[in-house]
């Protein structure tokens, strides 16, 4: 099962708008996607699950995907997080 590890640089972490974008991106794919932060794991398509991970700025998350389009899903999520959710990174 493919897995990637990323650092969330956004100043609000995986909350608010970044969390919404993250979930919306994950929902475009049919495969199962899990996000892990510390000991907690979440369904990447569940906003409630993702919020409850409590991912703050600078936290490291692992994402794994299984099923149809798993690789594309991971690539899309990686691009989203790496682009700082489409925002400038001046506030890091």
């Amino acid at each position, binding site marked *: 099962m493919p897995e990637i590890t990323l650092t969330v640089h956004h100043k609000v972490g995986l909350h*608010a708008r970044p969390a919404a974008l993250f979930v919306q991106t994950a929902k475009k794919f049919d495969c199962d996607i899990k996000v892990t932060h510390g000991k907690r794991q979440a369904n990447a398509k569940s906003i409630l699950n993702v919020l409850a991970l409590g991912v703050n700025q600078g936290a490291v998350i692992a994402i794994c995907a299984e099923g149809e389009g798993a690789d594309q899903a991971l690539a899309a999520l990686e691009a989203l997080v790496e682009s700082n959710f489409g925002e400038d990174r001046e506030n890091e």
Partner: protein
Amino acid sequence: MKTLRGIAASRGIAIGPAFHFRRADLCFERRTVDDPAAEWARFQCALKAACEQLADVYAKAQAESGDEQAAIFQAHALMLEDPELLDAVQASIVDQGINAEAALSDAAEMYAQMLESLDDDYLSARAADVRDVATRVLRILLGVAESPTTGLDTPSLILARDLTPSDTVLLDKSLVVGFCTAEGGATSHTAILARGLGLPAVVGAGPDVLQIPDGTLLVLDGDEGALLTQPDGDTVARYRAQQTATAALLTEARRHTHEPAVTRDGHHVEVAANIGNVEGARAALEAGAEGVGLLRTEFLYLERTHLPDEEEQYQAYRAIVDTFGDRPVILRTLDVGGDKSLPYLDLPDEMNPFLGLRAIRLCLARTELFKPQVRAALRAGAGRNLKVMFPMVATVAELRAARAMLEECRAELLAEGQPVAERMDVGIMVEVPAAALMADQLAAEVDFFSIGTNDLAQYTLAVERTNARVASLASGFHPAVLRLVHDVIAAAHARGKWVGLCGELAGEPLAIPILLGMGLDEFSMNPPAIPLAKQIIRALTLDHLQAVAQAALEMDTPEAVQSLVRERVPATAAG
């Protein structure tokens, strides 16, 4: 035709169709269903409707308030579609046969509590979002209108269990002809709101009020405290005639409202207004107020997320004082705590808020709250006729501490080179029985008193006026209250100080003769009550009223007091 009886809370006749103000009462029973698949389908239908509502709300919010506000509803939509939440709901419905309302409520509450348990302010706030989303779907499942006022599109008589201040924010006042509530007393929020708007109201009319179908033609008699359902044509015609006659009387009173209130024997009393913001100041001037007897300052503090700073307060007070030119304006310092809470102050819940850390007690305990207000008042009073008074003073020590704060602020402002009021009259609200009983001592250290009869009645009769089961006992006409009022006026006059009254009693046609007879100097009331109050005062003779006031003190019940006035002062019947 059927007649419901309640408490006459605000005068006048209202005729119009019934409209129920239904606060989202989302009670449901937990049950098992016979056909779980159908129940799941019912849930999905409600979910779809909720998503459509959210899309509308999102578009509206985006157009009205911009992307940031709208994003909240986008997040709500994501929560509605949350696969984990929906799985939990589906499992409860399909596997356990639980009804949709209970299944959704359980799942949402589980997530809300999980978010709250994470000890993070942002996530705790999201718990409220989860509950809000669930509520939206619950409303649809239960067939409850989205807002309590959805469908209010024609002038109507508002029916409710009781109304809170936040409920009334939702009401488009131009579509309200009157109010009738099942609960509440003469000093309930509904009653106060109605009098403030000059709309007729009957409160405490019992649970039958809630059974009246929407749209039923109603006649409400705010003078007699009656609500008539499905009145016949003759009855409606009779009340319409009465409405017209009252309107004519009011028109006459309004025509003379800018003339002073002088009794037949040449005694002038000041008729002032109770106001709570700048718009109120304008309404007061139009109504013929000779000043402001009570400027409530809570408007600056409520419905916001942080304390107003000194400058903001200064600007607001200055704007109001300027509206009145040379006429006196009495600013009451912050009266919150207890039942009026400010979320950003983080005040602990109290068992007995009316007996708790409220008003001057809170201000003296939290100087960061008090000081900016006192400084703003001193600045706003520079070159103007602004006075201050402190609410809920119970002891001489509190008065001294508050005065010391005033002097401290004055010294600071002078040192900073700011213009301040050279002299500012200082008074207290007399609303605690201890203050009324100690009025002779307190009078030595104030420039004036203002009697707050709503709270004075509550504390004297040991009646919490927001408690519908006992509220009707808290009448300002009670001889116990009137005796205190009488003694306070006498104690102040003995020391050459003047006394005002800013409770509901000041604008009551039946109370005015008694208060005049006791020698009250200033009557302060909601602006709509001013024209009639002045008209009544002009029809009275002070000489005759002193005996009436004395007789009132010897009565045994509030009703006996009212009957006495009706009998001995016919001029009040006009009101």
